[in-house]
């Protein structure tokens, strides 16, 4: 099979049939019809987007104002050649290479109180993947208050290389799920007084685990399951 597709890849129809055959009854159709937004494309958001693209979510809306920096490469889903590019553009290209069936829309803007309802209205699920503590709380509050049908899957605490088993998914409010250990504090937007050293630095695996929790909770919601 490898030889047959070498350098070309399967046709879209065939790719879709392969995905649909791997999931249970009707799940692929639900994913294909779904609209998911990812706010923040750092360690969490880039990995969430890649996971949701692989699984076949039909529409992904990616929002981040920033460009890829060398310091991102140890924990975010970008390549050396992406340095200097907008994260939205680098990730759009990566998703196209992983699963061309996914429709991707991007906005290179900072998520702020005044644009939250306009940006995320019309989405089924919003993955909160921002860095800054205050921005996270603001996005979650404004999105849940302003967009009643929206489900938000947020993250809190995923720095360092503490036990992977402390990261979990909890349903905290009617439409809010929070993934993470709830304790750590990492990222450039860190505002707590504790130093980076106390939290054992910024590492890829734990942020990927947390992103995996967020992507899986999103998948569960799209498949009609509300339990964390």
């Amino acid at each position, binding site marked *: 099979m490898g030889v047959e597709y070498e350098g070309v890849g399967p046709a879209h129809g065939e790719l879709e049939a392969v995905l649909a055959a791997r999931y249970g009854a009707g799940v692929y159709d639900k994913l294909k019809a779904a609209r998911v937004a990812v706010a923040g494309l750092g360690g969490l958001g880039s990995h969430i987007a890649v996971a949701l693209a692989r699984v076949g979510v039909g529409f992904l809306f990616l929002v981040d104002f920033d460009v890829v920096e060398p310091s991102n490469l140890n924990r975010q889903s970008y390549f050396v050649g992406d340095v200097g590019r907008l994260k939205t553009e680098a990730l759009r290209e990566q998703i196209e290479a992983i699963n061309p069936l996914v429709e991707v829309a991007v906005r290179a803007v900072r998520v702020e109180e005044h644009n939250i309802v306009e940006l995320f209205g019309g989405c089924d699920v919003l993955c909160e993947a921002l860095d800054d503590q205050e921005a996270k*709380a603001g996005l979650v509050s404004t999105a849940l208050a302003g967009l009643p049908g929206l489900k938000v899957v947020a993250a809190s605490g*995923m720095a360092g290389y503490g036990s992977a088993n402390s990261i979990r998914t909890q349903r905290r409010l009617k439409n809010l799920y929070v993934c993470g250990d709830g304790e750590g504090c990492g990222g450039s937007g860190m505002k707590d007084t504790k130093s980076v050293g106390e939290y054992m630095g910024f590492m890829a695996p734990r942020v990927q685990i947390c992103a995996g929790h967020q992507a899986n909770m999103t998948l569960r919601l799209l498949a009609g399951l509300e339990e964390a």
Partner: protein
Amino acid sequence: MKVNGAEVILREVVRLDMFLVEQGYNPAYVAVEMNGEVVLKSAYDQTILSDSDVIEVVRFVGGG
């Protein structure tokens, strides 16, 4: 009143932002649901709590 499932005695009428500080939260770092509705950040200083209220406070730490 109930806060995150636990009974809290409210001795006097208090504003949500002040109550959060009293409970050890930084109002900037939380999301609050009051009687089933999420409260906008800008409304914290205009929201008055009474003993019959049920609130959930979700605190966020940085990193992403």
